[in-house]
């Protein structure tokens, strides 16, 4: 096991795959000469040259479409968005082309492409730079959506995403690029898309969280541990396709659930997960499903307000105690 930063794990996945397959290339703003806005692609231009690590103008709609055209013609692009907030101008490429052309062409064209970059809140960056997009992209059939919480999952799942023949939305986090964690050094390490990870076993309450929210879930689980309760923490890792089996099996054990999701609450991933749980495990529920999300406002700028806006471990802890009927 090697200890890597999240950015190093993502880079390792790309490098291993690009060494293996010459059709893979990386394209995005500042990925080449500047070594990446968050240094994820550091050294990759030196290794592969300008032909395979390509700087683009500030034109997300253009280079997203360029990537899709390349994918349609047999290459396997990795498109980096400096942040997913910037990808809104490329929505037509992602939503109408990436998600739908395989369906509309009767399977004649597929898109072996990965769109990746940091997602969600990143501190005092104000409303337009703090958006969580997982619910948005998950609602379009045809896109796979992965959101990772640690270096090991980042490496294993990004390699699977690059090898997948369909478009994958791969969500990272500015806050977590420097996070260190053990990464399997198994040769050709991959993690299957669509498999959740039970991070901590327990029987008192099921807490579901992805990306940064996973860590809020784990912190709340520690607080519950101090109260004498074992929470089961599940990191879905893949938002779509979602691993319902793992979640439902857990609900059958704990009879209650708190979903942590830093998206705005309306029609969020938490909304869909809660719907599916009540539909699939109604008779196993002992309490209403609860969720902890960002507040239902644009993200504020002020430090105290952005902290209040985002789900906190304390919020998760209180929601857990409530569904356990302890308060």
């Amino acid at each position: 096991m090697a200890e890597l930063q999240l950015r190093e794990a993502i880079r390792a996945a790309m490098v291993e795959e690009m060494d293996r397959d010459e059709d893979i290339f990386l394209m995005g703003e500042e990925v080449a000469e500047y070594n990446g806005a968050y240094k994820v692609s550091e050294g990759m231009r030196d290794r592969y040259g300008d032909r395979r690590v390509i700087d683009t103008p500030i034109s997300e709609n253009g280079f997203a479409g360029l990537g899709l055209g390349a994918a349609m013609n047999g290459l396997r692009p990795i498109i980096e968005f400096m942040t997913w907030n910037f990808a809104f101008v490329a929505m037509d490429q992602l939503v109408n082309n990436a998600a739908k052309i395989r369906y509309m062409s009767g399977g004649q064209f597929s898109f072996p492409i990965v769109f990746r970059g940091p997602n969600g809140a990143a501190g005092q960056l104000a409303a337009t730079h703090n958006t969580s997009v997982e619910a948005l992209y998950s609602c379009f059939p045809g896109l796979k959506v992965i959101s990772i919480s640690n270096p090991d999952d980042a490496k294993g799942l990004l390699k699977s995403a690059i090898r997948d023949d369909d478009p994958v939305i791969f969500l990272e986090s500015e806050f977590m690029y420097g996070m260190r964690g053990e990464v399997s050094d198994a040769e050709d390490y991959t993690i299957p898309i669509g498999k959740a990870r039970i991070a901590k076993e327990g029987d008192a309450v099921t807490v579901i969280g992805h990306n940064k929210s996973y860590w809020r879930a784990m912190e709340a689980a520690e607080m519950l541990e101090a109260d004498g309760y074992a929470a089961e923490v599940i990191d879905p890792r893949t938002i779509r396709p979602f691993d319902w089996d793992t979640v439902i099996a857990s609900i059958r054990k704990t009879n209650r659930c708190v979903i942590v999701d830093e998206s705005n609450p309306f029609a969020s991933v938490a909304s869909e997960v809660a719907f599916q749980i009540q539909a699939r495990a109604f008779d196993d529920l002992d309490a209403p499903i609860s969720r902890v999300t960002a507040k239902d406002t644009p993200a504020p700028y002020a430090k105290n307000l952005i902290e209040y806006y985002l789900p906190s471990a304390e919020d998760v802890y209180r929601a857990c105690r409530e569904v356990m009927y302890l308060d």
Partner: protein
Amino acid sequence: MPIAIDMPKMTDTMEEGVLVEWAVEEGDNIAAGDVIAQVETDKATMDVEAYDDGVLLKKVAQAGDSLPIGGLIAILGNEGEDISGLLAEHGTNGTVAAAPPEEPVSVEPKPIPVETAPSGDALPAAGLPTNGRTKASPLARKMASDHGLPLVNLIGSGPGGRIIKRDVQAQIGRAPAPAAAPAPTYVPSDRSVDSVRISQMRKVIARRLAESKYTSPHFYLTADVDVAALITQRTMLNDYLAKSGGPKVSFNDFVTKACASALVQHPDVNVTYAPDDGVILRYNYVDIGVAVAIEDGLVTPVIRDAQQKTVATIAQEIQALAVRARDKKLTPEEMEGSTFTTSNLGMFGIESFTAIINPPNACILAIGGIRDTPVVENGAVVAGKRMKLTLSCDHRVVDGAVGAQFMATVKELLESPLSLLLQT
């Protein structure tokens, strides 16, 4: 805009407060910091102070009322201000009736606030009106149903009295709450009542036997039969049958055969009283119902024309019918139309008992067990074998002498068992 004054959380463990006494009157001018009322909590009686200036528009709670935290105590505002909107937001018990819309929320449903919450933000679920429904979580509902526990017998410890998993578990005496859980407010007992749906068979048994006992005036005749000879005879017969591969014959089979023969001799016992038709039905055949206990009830398969059958044939038929009865494979025809019935509880050590007549029969014979008993023979007390038979008679159609004569014949036949073998 009128301002709600809610029941404050005055101690860490407080869940509700009792308004003991008002310190102000409606129409009074109130300044922030004024004491408006005394509230009794779980710990002490404390003063409630106003946080705002204004006129006390309405005392919503009355002295003696108990309110949950967040429950509406009073309304403050400007003279003459409309408070109907604020009142409508609250239920009749002074608690918030519905969530105020458009309030950004992060945790759903809202937790009961631990710290002082801004007014209108706190929605204690415990205060929601129940509309008379028994509220239970889906899991609790399913568990209660699986264990046959009526929900109305359970006390809910969840918000608003919701019955939850731990309440059902406590009732069925299963796994207790986690060790570290705080003591539940409801202390359950181990007592429980299962409610088992009445089976169709049970309904039929109940209806027919109640009808019989209510409409037929029963009287009982008990005979003590000397079965010493019968025992010898049966042993010999079974030895013989064993060699020929036939089924064994029981004492019950002999009694059944004796009844069949006696009924031929006493046709006034082999009858049905049918007052609606103005007749008594007297049968020229003997169809004997034999009561068989099965898993959740009792059935009476019928031996047709028992008067024409040998003891061995009767034995064979009863065994076959009993097996089919226990397997619940009897057809309705096999259980209908008896003219007389026997019931045997001797195998349970019952010496004698009285049976309820099986309609439309006029009589039923209750067969007790064979017992060793001292008897007087030729002036000396010796060891004897006896069996008590008790005939229940419907006095509307069978009088005492008729029943007694029938019993005398049954006794005579069983005490001279060769005669039973002679008869077909």
